[in-house]
């Protein structure tokens, strides 16, 4: 697993996001979600290609209900980009790599 791919949980969420050196893209996902699996390898590629500019945090909604509820996630995959712990932009639904980069690069 790449260094800029973190596993987030209810307990480390705030601490990790506030302390991050780069913006963090949080991927709300679950094992049973087909489209989440489809975009997982794309997110890994983006983590590598945007190394030093962006960190990707994986949050399993099954195991981390509090964080899911806090951000009113009602559909997955949902991606939320955080800077200094504050949410900047929210992308709902699976998207292709180019489309994701287009949305993300303006904030990096």
């Amino acid at each position: 697993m790449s260094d800029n791919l973190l596993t987030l949980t209810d307990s480390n969420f705030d601490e990790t996001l506030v302390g991050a050196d780069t913006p963090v893209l949080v991927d709300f996902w679950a094992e049973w979600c087909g489209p989440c699996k489809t975009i997982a390898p794309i997110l890994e590629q983006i983590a590598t290609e945007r190394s030093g500019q962006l960190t990707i945090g994986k949050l399993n909604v099954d195991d981390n209900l509090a964080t899911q509820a806090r951000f009113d996630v009602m559909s997955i995959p949902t991606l939320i980009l955080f800077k200094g712990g504050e949410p900047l932009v929210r992308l709902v639904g699976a998207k292709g790599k180019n489309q994701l980069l287009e949305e993300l690069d303006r904030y990096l």
Partner: protein
Amino acid sequence: MNSHRQVVIIGSGPAGLTAAIYTARANLEPLVIEGEPSSDSDQPGGQLMLTTEVENFPGFPDGIMGPELMMNCKMQAERFGAEFLTAKVTSVDVSSRPFKIETTTRETFTADAVIVATGARSLMLGLEAEKRLLGYGLSTCATCDGFFHRGFEVGVVGGGDSALEEAMFLSKFATKVYVIHRRAELRASKIMADRAKANPKLEFVWNSVVTDLVGDTTLEAAVLRDVETGEETKLPIHGLFVAIGHIPNTDVFRGILDSDEAGYLKTVGFSTYTNVEGVFACGDVQDHVYRQAITAAGSGCMAAIDCERWLESVHT
């Protein structure tokens, strides 16, 4: 990636992947342009990526998860040398040979033969509010989003097998599932209808269509119109799932390949030949009758065999 191919397969559901397995085993080194991830349109792996358990695919006595079945098919195709590109096709030029195919990754491929297996996608309601609330209570994927409606009441629009399958899946989480159908009887198969009617959490709302959605940032209610009386009522729900039918993914082939009034590609007789020699169509993109994973896979196999024989005939 080699830009000239004997066979390019567009689409990666059961039809496209079966065509890939067969053409790869025939040493045709197919390139599969598998589509791009999406939650509200077509996507790599096709419609089965949005389902849970597939109970009726032969060979799996205990059932298999839809996404797992498609991942297996992809691995099987890769084992025989099929290559995959995660992109959508933006244009197809069949006016001269080899055929030209352009993709969203700004690559151009040429191909001696093309197998079209782009499938179909879910129809939406066509309401203005849909764009605002998609992902915020309105959903096209019960298996992705059902989880977020634990302890709430939800609705499913539609009366076919897909609608009932979603409704029953949602009944595991929701306190009540309203099945909103524009007719007074279900279109679904008897086994599904019987199961649905026996499910105490399902409540059928007959002769009704959704005319509007209420809620600014999250869905609060659906406005229903009784098609017989014209009366409108507001149904408070936390989630709404749409399963009202499908539309074939044929936009890039419009004006190039012959299609019927509903947009499904036409094939010749019992074959997978289209009106353009060297272009074959298989799966849901040319089938609005059966639309099963197994029939799509079967026609993908037919397309591969048609394609292989056609290539042999033109090369000799």
